[in-house]
């Protein structure tokens, strides 16, 4: 890769605050991937706004030297929406967690996605409440034993990808906290996509849910248990690139590249397809039956809300006779008293 001169290096984004996440927490790696992505995006630092809610992940804005807003629980999507609609020139990022975005902030999350406001939502998914010290979250696997589910949870978890598609989302990607190279690429793709981009980061909470993603993130198994989807490329995975995905009827199936099955028999990834059927199936793949999909799963271009707002204003301004408040005050039925 050719190093190009950028406006800011990743470390220019380091703030003067001491990073207070637990040593070994996945959040550290996410911070460093995002700093790399911001540097590579080559946008002046003052144009970034990072908005977060409440939770471990939401401390993020303090640690990054851009405009930042650490807000209240669940509301980051609404605040970020306001920032972006108010000033579409900014690169607006929302940092959130599974509890913040999908429990208390579920309503704002789905509506931000539905409106397709151009914000980048980075959802740290550790399947647990960390800051309140270990209660189950809306993404905790059914049966998980936590402090508030001593006999195991009895709730069906959300799959963030499925929720995004259900909310008419246009961009969904997934990455692993520890995979800095892939993560950096994905954050950049998310930033460059016009519209709401949701990136689910499988994040390890070393204190309250350690190893929750270990089955797929361990170096030894990673390549066999995840698949990195890339636009236009066959859906192939495995340490030896010896496995792939095909359609069997209406369902996905894992095949071995042997016995006459070759690369060209595999499905080819098309993130830009508007029909979300395949994207939903890919996002829903779970180990052990399937590899977990990483990469940009869905990236469909569509008009954004913030641009539509500006467009409508420009159009109405052109045709209306009311150009200033004085015009408005004198419009319609008025009369003179002499």
């Amino acid at each position, binding site marked *: 890769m050719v190093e190009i001169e950028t406006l800011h290096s990743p470390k220019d984004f380091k*703030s003067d*605050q001491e990073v207070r996440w637990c040593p070994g927490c996945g959040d550290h790696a996410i911070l460093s991937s995002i700093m790399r992505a911001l540097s590579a995006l080559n946008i*002046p*630092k*003052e*144009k*970034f*706004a990072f*908005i977060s809610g*409440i939770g471990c992940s939401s401390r993020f*804005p*303090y640690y990054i*030297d*851009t*405009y*930042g*807003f*650490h*807000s*209240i629980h669940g*509301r980051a999507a*609404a*605040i*970020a*929406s*306001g*920032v*972006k*609609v*108010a*000033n579409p*020139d*900014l690169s607006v990022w929302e940092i959130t967690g599974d509890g913040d975005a999908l429990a208390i902030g579920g*309503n*704002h999350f789905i*509506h931000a996605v539905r409106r397709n406001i151009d914000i980048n939502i980075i959802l740290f998914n550790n399947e647990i409440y960390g800051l309140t010290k270990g209660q189950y979250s809306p993404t905790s696997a059914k049966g998980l034993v936590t402090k508030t589910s001593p006999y195991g949870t009895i709730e069906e978890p959300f799959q963030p990808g499925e929720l995004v598609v259900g909310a008419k989302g246009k961009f969904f990607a997934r990455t692993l906290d520890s995979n800095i190279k892939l993560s950096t690429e994905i954050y950049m793709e998310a930033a460059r996509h016009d519209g709401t981009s949701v990136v689910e980061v499988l994040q390890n909470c070393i204190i309250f849910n350690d190893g929750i993603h270990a089955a797929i993130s361990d170096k030894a198994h990673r390549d066999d248990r995840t698949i990195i989807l890339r636009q236009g490329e066959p859906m192939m995975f495995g340490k030896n690139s010896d496995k792939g995905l095909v359609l069997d009827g209406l369902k996905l199936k894992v095949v071995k590249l042997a016995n006459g099955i070759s690369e060209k028999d595999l499905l080819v990834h098309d993130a830009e397809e508007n029909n979300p059927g395949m994207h939903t199936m890919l996002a829903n793949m779970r180990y052990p039956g399937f590899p977990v999909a990483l990469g940009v799963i869905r990236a469909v271009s569509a008009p954004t809300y913030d641009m539509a*707002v500006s467009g*409508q*204003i420009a*159009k*109405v*301004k052109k045709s*209306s006779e*009311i*150009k*200033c*408040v*004085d015009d*408005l*005050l*004198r419009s*319609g*039925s*008025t*009369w*003179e*008293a*002499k």
Partner: protein
Amino acid sequence: MRNSDNVIEREEMVIRFSGDSGDGMQLTGTLFSNTSALFGNDISTFPDYPAEIRAPQGTVGGISGFQVHVGHSEIFTPGDLADVLVAMNPAAIKANSKLIRQGGTIIIDEDNFTEKNITKAGYTSDPVKEDKLEDYNIIAAPISTLVKEALKDFGLDPKTVMRTKNMFALGIVYWLFDRELKYTRSFIEKKFSLRPEIIRANMEVLNAGYNYGETIEALTPTYRVSPAKIDKGTYRNINGNTSTAWGLLAAAEKANLELFIGSYPITPATGILEELAARKDLGVKSFQAEDEIAGICTAIGASFAGRLAVTTTSGPGLALKAEALGLAVMTELPLVVINVQRGGPSTGLPTKTEQSDLMQALYGRNGESPVVVIAASTPSNCFKFAFEAARIAVEHMVPVILLTDGFLANGTEPWRIPSMADLPDINPPLAIEGDTDYIPYKRDEKLLNRKWAIPGTRGFEHRIGGLEKTINGTVSYVPENHEYMVKIRAEKVARVVTKVPDMKVYGAGEGDILVIGWGGTYGHLLTAVREIIDDGLIEVGFAHFNYINPLPSNTAKVFSCFKMLLVAELNSGQFVNYLRMNFQEFNFQQINKVQGLPFTVAEIKDKCYKIVEI
């Protein structure tokens, strides 16, 4: 002008249109009031309707009313009692029989006084007899029959025909007050511009109603309420919600900031969101949020991004916004929150007026969370106080709650249109590129406000948030720092008083009794006080508060000039208790009403006379 012996000259008159919620009474009332305003009368209106869009027909609960007070002299209220009642059915009599002036005129649709409707309204026989209204001037017109007759050659379906009944009633009222039909015609022509047959039908029926009046002229007097002597200028009729929306627009223009409104529809505040959504021509960004919380949060986001940010709501919505409002207090961002109060608690009385959110506005948040609270007091001065709310928010970097209410929101009055050149400039304390280092919570020595560094400004990247922090914005749990920050945030709000005008007392500057009010009760209290002054029996003054937190600095001085202090409000005593807390040296008396209705002038007068024992 009519030249007849049968014309009675009047200083002022009150007309109440009353019928089923589907009878078009709100439109009829609006048309009559606009016609009267254009004619030159001073007016005040009061729409009073049920929450249900089509409440059960023929029942008292389904009655929709619209009261108009027209005057040759100055008018401050929609009036206590109606001189003329239009009653489209028996239930309309039932709902209003105690609200008609002794001997007033009642126009009824005779055809609707069937046995079934009479029973539905809760009568057993003729409502006029049962309610002892025989001595009143009853104009019993077979409106339904006459409308059918008038439109028999129009080829319209019966439902459409019956929908024009309100125009017949309006025609009679126009005749009764000798009013021109011009404004109504142009309104109808505009409203139904795509349906010429509907225009013709409505006009036909309106004329038929007017002519019906002519034919009965010999039997009944008509009225003349001459134009009011009002200050020179250009006028328009305006309701409180529109006037609020326009005040915000004016503030945005004066502050040179884009206006952003994040709101969720809620009665009776929705009109502000609707008006601003239509003002794309003035660059307004309106965001209809997924809920009340998102309404305020998008506004907070827009404020962070450097816009004049507003969220509008009514009581239950303010409750939902409480946590986010605390965030705006903590981050010291400018924000205007408008609460158009309605009857509570819970869903309460959505379409009725009340002043019961004062305590919620002042204290309804976790922690020590002071905000500026101001209140508008007439439909037209909602403009002034919306402007003022925005000015204070932006210049002092503080959230401001503006309280209006359902009575102001929907009520209308003539308004002398101001010129933008006459309004003060608004100066946001923006951090400008090139300034020295930006410290997020460093304060102006006088106002204690912080500077507003807008994302996109180079060199001022900083973080704010809901956690307690030092002046650098660094999170801090140091006990002394927290106490210091709590105090300084409160002191910042207190110092808004430096820009608050002194309280001016109306009437006597000292004397027997000071009538004290706040917000939307202004017109009724003022009228009562004027009448007491005219009676000349006691020395009365009137102090009406628009600034609630902080209170004007001369408040205690004003109070000390009167023997008795009477606080009047439409709740169980929220302002009076706030005053008791702030001014323990005084003894306050109170008059309260919690019926979802405004005070009547008579109630206030009676109370005043009672406590001074006259």
